[in-house]
């Protein structure tokens, strides 16, 4: 999981930012945009803990 964590987490961040931008330019509709954001959120919380360290203090 660890080697995949960083690319997956970065992909999730892209999946959080890009769909609204595509929606802004009418390249994506509202439903798929919201679904992509949800999937990106799930991927982020699955991958990011293996990538980001710290936060205990």
């Amino acid at each position, binding site marked *: 999981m660890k080697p995949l964590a960083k690319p997956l987490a970065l992909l999730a*961040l892209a999946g959080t930012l890009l769909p*609204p931008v595509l929606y*802004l330019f009418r390249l994506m509709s509202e439903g798929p945009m*919201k*679904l992509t954001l949800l999937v990106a959120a799930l991927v982020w*919380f699955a991958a*990011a803990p293996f990538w980001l360290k*710290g*936060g*205990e203090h």
Partner: protein
Amino acid sequence: MSEHPVVSPPAGGEYEREPVPERALKGPSAFWGMYAGEHTAGTEFMIGPLFVAWGASAFDLIFGLLLGNLLAVLTWRFLTAEIATRRRLTLYYQLERITGRNLVTLYNFFNGVLFCFLAGAMVTVSATAVGVPFEGRVRMPSFGDTWPPGVAWVLVCLGLGAAMTFVAARGYGFVARVGHVAAPWMFLVFVACGVVMLAKLGTTNLFAVIQPPAHTPAKIGFWGVVCFAWFCNAAMHLGMADLSIFRFARKPAYGWASAAGMYLGHYIAWICAALLLVYWVRERGADPVKGVPPGPMVWDAVGWAGLICVVIAGWTTANPTIYRAGLAFQGMAPRLSRVTATLVAGTVCTLAGIFPAVAMKLLDFVGLYGTILCPVGAVIVVDHFLARRVGLPAEYAVRTGTGFNPAVLLAWALPVLGALYFYRVHGVNSFFLPLPTWLACGALYVVFSKMWHRTAPAVA
């Protein structure tokens, strides 16, 4: 705003009563990361829309926030970080060396109670998201509500508050970890909300869409926005609470790290959150004065990801705040176990969360929070920069062995009482009060110390 009010941790291992040694100092990335994460919190979802409800224009928001946040960063850099890296002590120990133990106890009391109300606002914000799937059965509060809007609302708040208190009582390491991991994603959800709102409004011209509501007198203008941005964390920079953080910095230049929190959380996130209410007012006919709770607005903008973000943002910021409030209470009554103190704090916080008054009047509350707590920072600034120049005994309590320095109590209490008078009687906005209160406290401390401490005996 910041949700990292720092309370002196229990003795043992965190250099609470000694300068941080060279080997424990941290590099700049720790500070940039911490400030970026800690200032993108649940309250940001309230503050942005409240600016709109108060009639701020696009110019006020864009340039007022730019200037106010710059002033906040400069305060952190040239006051807080400067003193922190010279003394390397926590606020509490530094204060104790000047004021004596008893006044630190009083400070802890105010700190603990205000933390509870702040955490209560987080419970309220989170509850507006939890209520969304139960549409129709949970009535949401509006900006004007001070009392709970219904039984279902109370039950949601009680459930959330109990869960947050339970986790905080077990120690907040896990939640701090979740908060750390969630921070970059949460920031992008704010940005996503802003972009989606611009798409729905059909323009990217902020100046065209952010306008004060017609026929509604503006309650905040350019200088109000400047002062709010500057002083919403007054307790942390002017009030010196962040001495506890920057004492670990290698150089005072690390104070610039606060810019990460100010310009990501208190600039971009606030403007994005403000766009949520702008859209609801312009396109869906919402009353800007009554407002719309964050949960339904975020749900409408970005769906489930937004609801998850609101709950996590509220939860990860409420939990450390409850935990730290518990520590503040424990500091007052050391015989109290940390778990018991946290449960007391969590109970107060949950009860506060049921009443939407604090969250819905967050702009006011944050100003009062700074007004009450930040003046003690002026005492530290006078002690550090001016004491020798004006002939005052530095670190008076250490020199004399006293547990109570009346000069500090009066210098703190008189300006705060004066500020509260102007707030209550003359209706002065609370975010204009921290700076004059802080300056008055510093000046009075010099005067009272000159009167009473001219011949302070040194303790052998």
